């Protein structure tokens, strides 16, 4: 038993940290946030050199064949640097959908391109979590009709993985006839989502689709969002501690006041145990299938709450500066807020967890 990251995993996380520190500083993030629906190609090319888009994809298809814990510690770094990159859909959820439900031909066609960082893959599954009003997608004979909001990695996608309302997964090309696409600005300008509206759009089903496959894609997405919040929260704590050590009032740094010191300590006390939860949830996706879904729910809902507490408290420590655009702390604040709502807010996810455990009707 060794509840720890391996040496390789530490090296992987360090290399991603160094890459993002150098290539995605706040001024770059700010520029990217002005063009949310444009893929940051040179940054994505850099990530591709590190093998990130193909990290979960088997080596046979040109990927690294790593696991979800590896992906989680990488996405944690993305959260730490609020990296404006299409990781969640393209590098995690879409490849997983193809690996679980795609035919060999579909895998051979698409996985190597994803692994090489050549294409962006959007993922449209939100209607499988909470159907709203008139939304949802119905599959006909080789076609899809309906609409889906909050499509992950929507911008410049070269293909979309779409879940219909009967747990079917489909491949849709962005140029398909009858498909309309609408960008959606959200609070988080570092990640692109949008709406897809289908009017008899021809789609290619993934032949091994199942309710379980859709659920596993969502589980993986939820663990990644938890990891993203973990990284973003950690950075907010570090920024708070640094600010509290610089900002002076009443002739001393504000970090010397217990009122401020304790705010920082409470953040650390809340976030650090969450790290272990995220690790285990990611590990369960790889190795403990019986625990995976429940742990994904727990990680998602708990990190949502802890993330919100940290985001808020860090903003409080920064005083007025915390809610200025100028300082940019809000990129982390909003990233955490977006992580909370995407793929199910904590209230909904907790309800799911209760159902999984037979605690709710």
């Amino acid at each position: 038993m060794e509840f720890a990251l391996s040496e390789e995993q530490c090296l992987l996380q360090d290399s991603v940290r160094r890459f993002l520190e150098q290539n995605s500083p706040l001024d770059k993030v700010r520029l990217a946030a002005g063009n949310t629906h444009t893929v940051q190609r040179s940054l994505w090319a850099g990530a591709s050199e590190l093998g990130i888009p193909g990290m979960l994809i088997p080596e046979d298809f040109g990927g690294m064949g790593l696991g979800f814990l590896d992906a989680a510690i990488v996405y944690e770094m993305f959260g730490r640097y609020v990296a404006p990159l299409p990781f969640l859909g393209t590098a995690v959820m879409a490849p997983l959908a193809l690996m679980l439900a795609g035919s060999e031909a579909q895998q051979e066609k698409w996985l190597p391109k994803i692994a090489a960082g050549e294409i962006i893959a959007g993922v449209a599954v939100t209607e499988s979590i909470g159907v709203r009003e008139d939304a949802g997608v119905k599959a006909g004979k080789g076609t899809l009709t309906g609409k889906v909001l909050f499509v992950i990695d929507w911008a410049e996608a070269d293909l979309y993985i779409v879940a219909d309302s009967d747990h079917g997964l489909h491949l849709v090309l962005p140029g398909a006839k009858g498909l309309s696409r609408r960008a959606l600005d959200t609070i988080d300008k570092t990640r692109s989502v949008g709406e897809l509206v289908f009017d008899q759009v021809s789609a290619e089903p993934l032949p091994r689709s199942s309710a379980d496959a859709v659920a596993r894609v969502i589980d993986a997405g939820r663990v990644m969002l938890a990891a993203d919040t973990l990284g973003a929260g950690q950075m907010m704590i570090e920024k708070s501690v640094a600010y509290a050590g610089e900002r002076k009032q009443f002739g001393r740094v504000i970090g010397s006041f217990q009122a401020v010191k304790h705010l920082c300590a409470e953040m650390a006390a809340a976030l650090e145990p969450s790290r272990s939860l995220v690790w285990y949830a990611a590990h369960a996706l790889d190795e403990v299938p019986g625990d995976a879904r429940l742990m994904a729910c727990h990680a998602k809902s708990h990190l949502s709450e802890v993330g919100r507490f940290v985001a808020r408290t860090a903003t409080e420590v920064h005083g007025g500066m915390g809610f200025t655009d100028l300082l940019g702390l809000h990129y982390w604040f909003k990233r955490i807020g977006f992580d909370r709502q995407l793929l199910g807010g904590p209230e909904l996810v907790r309800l799911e967890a209760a159902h999984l455990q037979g605690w709710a009707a």
Partner: protein
Amino acid sequence: MDIELTKEDDAFRAEVRRFISEKLPRELAERETVGASGERGALRRWQKDLHEKGWVAVNWPRQYGGTGWTPLQKHIFNEEMAAANAPRLSPFGLSMVGPVIYTFGNEEQKKQHLPSILSGDVWWCQGYSEPGSGSDLASLRTRAVRQGDHYIVNGQKIWTSYAHEADWIFCLVRTDETAKPQEGISFLLIDMKTPGIEVKPIISIDGLHHLNEVFFTDVKVPVTNRIGDENKGWTYAKFLLVNERTGIAGVPESKRKIAHLRKIVKQERLGDGAALADEPAFMTRLSEIEVKLTGLEYTNLRIVAEEVAGRPAGPSSSTLKIVGTEVQQALSELAVEAAAFYAMPFQREHLMGIANEAPVGPAYAVSVTSAYNFGRAASIYGGSNEIQRNVIAKAVLGL
């Protein structure tokens, strides 16, 4: 203790309702409901109507154009206004500098400023915080040097809400560099059109422009614009802060938000199709907040009664500020939760009230996240809640 309403009180309530139904512009109330900022012109007209009726300055003494109402009448009025979604009038003149002017100003100053505050013709902003002086306000460094009949003002203010729309600013300035910090401050009224004043926007977490930096470079301010005595400004500043903190508690606004949330939860569906109103965990939290708010509401009434009896609110306003802002933040959190997915979209045009198309998601969801985000400021402005706790520890508990 007497909480029965008399016939006169009932009649008064009916009169208030009648006035609101006749005068409150419908679009202003609707905007207020979704949380979008009210359009300035409509706000001005609403203030004019209130002013004509003599109801614009609820808490001012009658001799200066206030209502002279009993605390209970004020309470009834505030309740009805909140229930009707009437927008809050800009507090900088009516709740902040106005009371300072009629309490500490001279006759000339009262004559010059009070009427235009009441009518809404002149808009004010607050020049208190500086980059190095937030919680430690008394360390402020914007200095005013006497030169004949004028002060020459140099320095910088920050976090100045709506300075870009204001006609006048009330400012704390340092007039004695050698005295103890609190004893070298004066309170000046400055016309924003005076040469040497520059306003720069601060874009805040909600992506919008409410806040500013205000720079003063050799700004000439007549000595007659000083309130009260030179170097006694801290006294007036603290008087104002007490009013500001009581106002920040925002009890009527929170009551309105609760009523609004109660409507939302009937419409909003959960993942399994049930109404959010049937979700006990959510409703329990809503009820907990409501209880806190009710406590605040009656505390407000007590404070008003104390003031009527000539005992000023003082440090208890710090308690109101802490609990009031916590209630606001908890409510904004619940609104985000109620909106769920639809808390994500950022719909700038809808927030500004200039959209032509229907919003993504229900109308009530449009502003929930911006309100939640900008609402983080509530525990910081008007003296951070950490500072308020210090005030309570020292001034209330004697620690």
